[in-house]
């Protein structure tokens, strides 16, 4: 599949609109919407004329990032870039979901560079905001808090994705077509195992005693009882509520 210049540009815009900190769709719809490959991939699919395929690829690329967290500005990877450019390249090359994950993950790592640049360059604008604050000029402060950082970020987001989607599609298609079968099999296994990272990272955040046991409980509920996610979630809410109420009854903390 060919990606036209206009399509490549639009994909860049989708990535920009989803990147952490863009204000145009609210923080929530950016960071929890377009930034997540499930949503970003679907919209890329619409741009490339096949929303269903975009949705399938995007949902798959989202798997390793299902438990993704950006805490205090420290982001281990960039699902936004993986979901937009990754879906575009995977659709252009016509690969299946597992291989799409392997294409997207390295992009996600590259994407952290864009994030780090954003967090660093913005330091300049904070100092202009300081000046505005010293002058008591709230309008000027609000301006420097919004426009300059966003213009810089738009350029940093749209340009690389445009280049990647417009020129990269042929390269990726070529490379994938030439890969021997066992290499493809390797990539597929990688795609299957990478969600483990995101889950382990999240589990690490939970320091409460016994968290590994609760983890295994959830694992077994799905593996053996084959409960759907919503059922596990409801079970979890009731279980956590009951446990906590009993625990707190004596006023313990």
């Amino acid at each position, binding site marked *: 599949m060919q990606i036209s210049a206009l399509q490549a540009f639009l994909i860049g815009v989708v990535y920009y609109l989803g990147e952490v*900190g863009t204000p145009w769709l609210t923080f929530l719809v950016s960071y929890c919407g377009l930034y997540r490959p499930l949503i970003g991939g679907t919209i890329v699919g619409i741009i490339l004329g096949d929303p269903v395929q975009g949705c399938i690829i995007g949902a798959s690329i989202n798997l390793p990032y299902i438990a993704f967290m950006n805490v205090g500005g420290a982001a281990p990877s960039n699902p936004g870039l993986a979901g937009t450019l990754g879906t575009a390249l995977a659709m252009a090359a016509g690969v299946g979901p597992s291989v799409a994950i392997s294409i997207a993950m390295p992009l996600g790592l590259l994407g952290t560079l864009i994030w780090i640049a954003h967090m660093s360059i913005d330091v300049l604008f904070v100092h202009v905001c300081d000046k505005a604050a010293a002058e008591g000029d709230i309008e000027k402060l609000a301006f420097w808090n*919004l426009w300059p950082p966003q213009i810089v970020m738009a350029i940093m987001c749209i340009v690389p994705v445009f280049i990647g989607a417009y020129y990269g599609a042929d390269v990726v298609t070529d490379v994938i077509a030439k890969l021997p079968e066992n290499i493809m099999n390797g990539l597929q296994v990688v795609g299957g195992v990478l*969600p483990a990272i995101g889950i382990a990272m999240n589990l690490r955040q939970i320091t409460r005693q016994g968290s590994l046991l609760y983890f295994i409980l959830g694992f077994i509920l799905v593996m053996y009882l084959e409960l759907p996610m919503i059922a596990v979630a409801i079970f979890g809410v009731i279980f956590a509520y009951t446990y906590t109420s009993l625990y707190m009854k004596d006023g313990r903390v």
Partner: protein
Amino acid sequence: MTKNNEDIKLEKKLTKSDVVKSFIRWSFISHTNYNYERLQASMFTSSLKPVFKRLYGDDPDGMKEALQRHMAFFNTEPHFGGVIHGIVIAMEEQKANGAPITGEAINSIKTGLMGPLAGVGDTLWQGTIVPILLAIGISLGIEGNLLGPLIYILLLTSIMWTIAYNVWMKGYELGTEGIQKILSGNLIQSVIMSASILGAIVLGALGASFVNLSSPIVITIGQFQMPLQSGIIDPILKGLLPLTAIFLSYYLMKVKRMKSLHVMGILFVGAFILGALGILG
């Protein structure tokens, strides 16, 4: 604080729309100028523009002081953390009307609350609500059902905005003392505890659903053939391989203190080699 509100005649009264407008501003701009030096400082200040204009519109010195005071380092989770904005708005309103509240008091409330609320907020939101809803959305989306992304985003925005709006308004309504009362009680501890238990259970479910690892090896001894996966691994523990991959990553990160990037590298290379050799498939 609410009591004080009645005692002191407020000359510079904020309207409800000032408070709501600030909330809406914050929803849009909470990270526009996010940076390593002071994180959300200028975003916090800018979001309170309607409040500052009302309170200090005809008091240039008061405005200068207020703006400079809020340019200090600030970082919190943007939805649950909105309670801080609510409290700060209430305090600024009091201060502008001559209540004996120092700038330091306002700043210490901010720094005191931003850490704990970021912790609670991130666990509840990024760590629990988002993964659960994503799991539902992904399980539909991966089948090519466009309702997956749609349901995900609709549920997410309605849940999060409801929480964020109410938390913001509650902060303004209750002020410092009311919030301190809530924070010093068992409520926050209970919420953290419930969220971590729920989070761990959900993560387990996610691991079982979405980590995909099995072996295609078939053991052949003479006439006797036995597939490794269904013949040996599954009877021991269904999902043994995915569980191993998760616990290995967990062990490397938590106990060995390795960076997630390095663990990802190890998993990537390991899985690739084993897959290419046909041991995993």
